[in-house]
């Protein structure tokens, strides 16, 4: 075993562990571009220690961080590859994403987790929606940028690894496009209803398609664009035809934060 411990191995391990001084770190990175063996050793150490990162609790960054990143992106349509401008810009992605996900049928484990989530939500009752979707307090004097974003996207998930729908909101066109990115569990005896949850108050945006079909919904809440930075979209399971009361009555099966698209 220790004869397999080369100088290269030591360098890779120290690099991944993070103990090298800045100048040496940079030198290792430059070396690894040319030295495929070193790059492989680095990747192997990253993989060995990856569980330490997987175990690190996720922390939702403040909404302002995405605005900073979007604003710092190089302008669109520059030297990059051709890029659509309309809501279909993400279509290529979705084709490949869905293709990749198609193989991932709802596994038994997934249904188990879903069932547990449903049970919890049923226990909590209709008010569970608000409970499970805690609103971060609006930042003091939350300012809207001068040019308010016109397009938003939200990846609605059951848990971080189980995406259900990708929802794009286009204020200029006045429509919401919801595409299933994975085979969604059937809405047994009912319908999926999409909600905007802003300041803790759910408002219906309409019913979503079942199966693998995309759906377009007219924008029933024109003020959606004015939703606060903590606004969420949620999907609940409702009786066929939608919630009779105008408020969610069934369990929340997917949820996601609404984030503005960079233009």
């Amino acid at each position, binding site marked *: *075993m220790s004869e397999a411990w080369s100088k290269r*191995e*030591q360098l890779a*391990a120290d690099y*991944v*562990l*993070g*103990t090298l*001084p*800045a100048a040496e*770190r940079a030198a290792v*990175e430059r070396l690894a571009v040319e030295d495929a063996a070193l790059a492989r050793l680095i*990747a*192997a150490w*990253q*993989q*060995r*220690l*990856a*569980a*330490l*990162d*997987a*175990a*690190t609790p*996720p*922390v*939702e*960054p403040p909404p302002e*961080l*995405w605005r*900073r*990143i*979007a604003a*710092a*992106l190089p302008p*669109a349509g520059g030297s*990059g*590859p051709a*890029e659509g401008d309309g809501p279909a*810009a*993400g279509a*290529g*992605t979705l084709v*490949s*994403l869905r*293709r*990749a*996900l198609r193989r991932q049928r709802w596994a038994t484990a997934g249904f188990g987790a879903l069932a547990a989530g449903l049970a919890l939500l049923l226990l909590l009752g209709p008010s569970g929606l608000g409970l499970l979707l805690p609103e971060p307090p609006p930042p003091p004097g939350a300012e809207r940028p001068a040019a308010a974003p016109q397009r938003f*996207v939200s*990846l609605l998930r059951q848990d*971080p*690894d*189980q*995406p259900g729908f990708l929802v*794009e909101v286009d204020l200029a066109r006045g429509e919401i496009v919801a595409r299933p*990115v994975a085979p969604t569990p059937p809405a047994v005896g009912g319908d999926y209803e999409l909600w905007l949850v802003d300041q803790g108050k759910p408002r219906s945006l309409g019913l979503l398609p079942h199966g693998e079909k995309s759906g377009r919904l007219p924008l029933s809440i024109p003020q959606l664009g004015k939703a606060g930075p903590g606004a969420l979209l949620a999907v609940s399971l409702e009786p066929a035809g939608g919630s009779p009361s105008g408020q969610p009555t069934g369990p929340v099966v997917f949820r996601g*934060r609404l*984030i503005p*698209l960079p233009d």
Partner: protein
Amino acid sequence: MTAEPRQAESPAGGAPDSSTRVLAPLLAACAAGDRAAFATLYQASSAKLFGVALRILRRDDWARDVVQDAYLTIWRRAGDYRAERGTPMTWMIAIVRNRALDRLRRDRGERSLDELTEAGLEPDDPQALARVAAAGEGSGTRLVTCLGQLDARARRCILRAYCEGYTHSELAEREAAALGTVKSWIRRGLIQLKSCLESREATP
């Protein structure tokens, strides 16, 4: 896109994990300049990356800078991602770690060792180890078992270095040991860790 997106195989040859199935096609779309994919990628990964940055930096403002910088790098270099070198999440975390460590090395003077000791993770905390064991679809259990076989000092140093960005000399100060001694604990610990992990991968 006509070809199926490349699937990342885990080094042990297992099936790609569920986050890989989502993130790999998103990275491929980012490489083609798709901004909607980038926004979705951010949504699917930012809480994890921010958590890792906070763990290393312990300062909200630094973590925000580092994560911003990391996502701009991810956007620019999405085409460099190679499935055979690890999962998309590991690739993105490596970018965040590098930025975070650069920031620490640059501004280390501002972080006192006392501050670190107070807020620090206790490498022997059974709860922290239980979280690691539960993570990573089997690789976490192996890692915790193998870490458990190391000398306690080596284990502490390895965990503090990886999780909190300690340098050799910070570790020496913390352990009240000579620099050379700490380096050799770590070296021996890593050699032992590798051989333990490899023997367990071979016989799952």
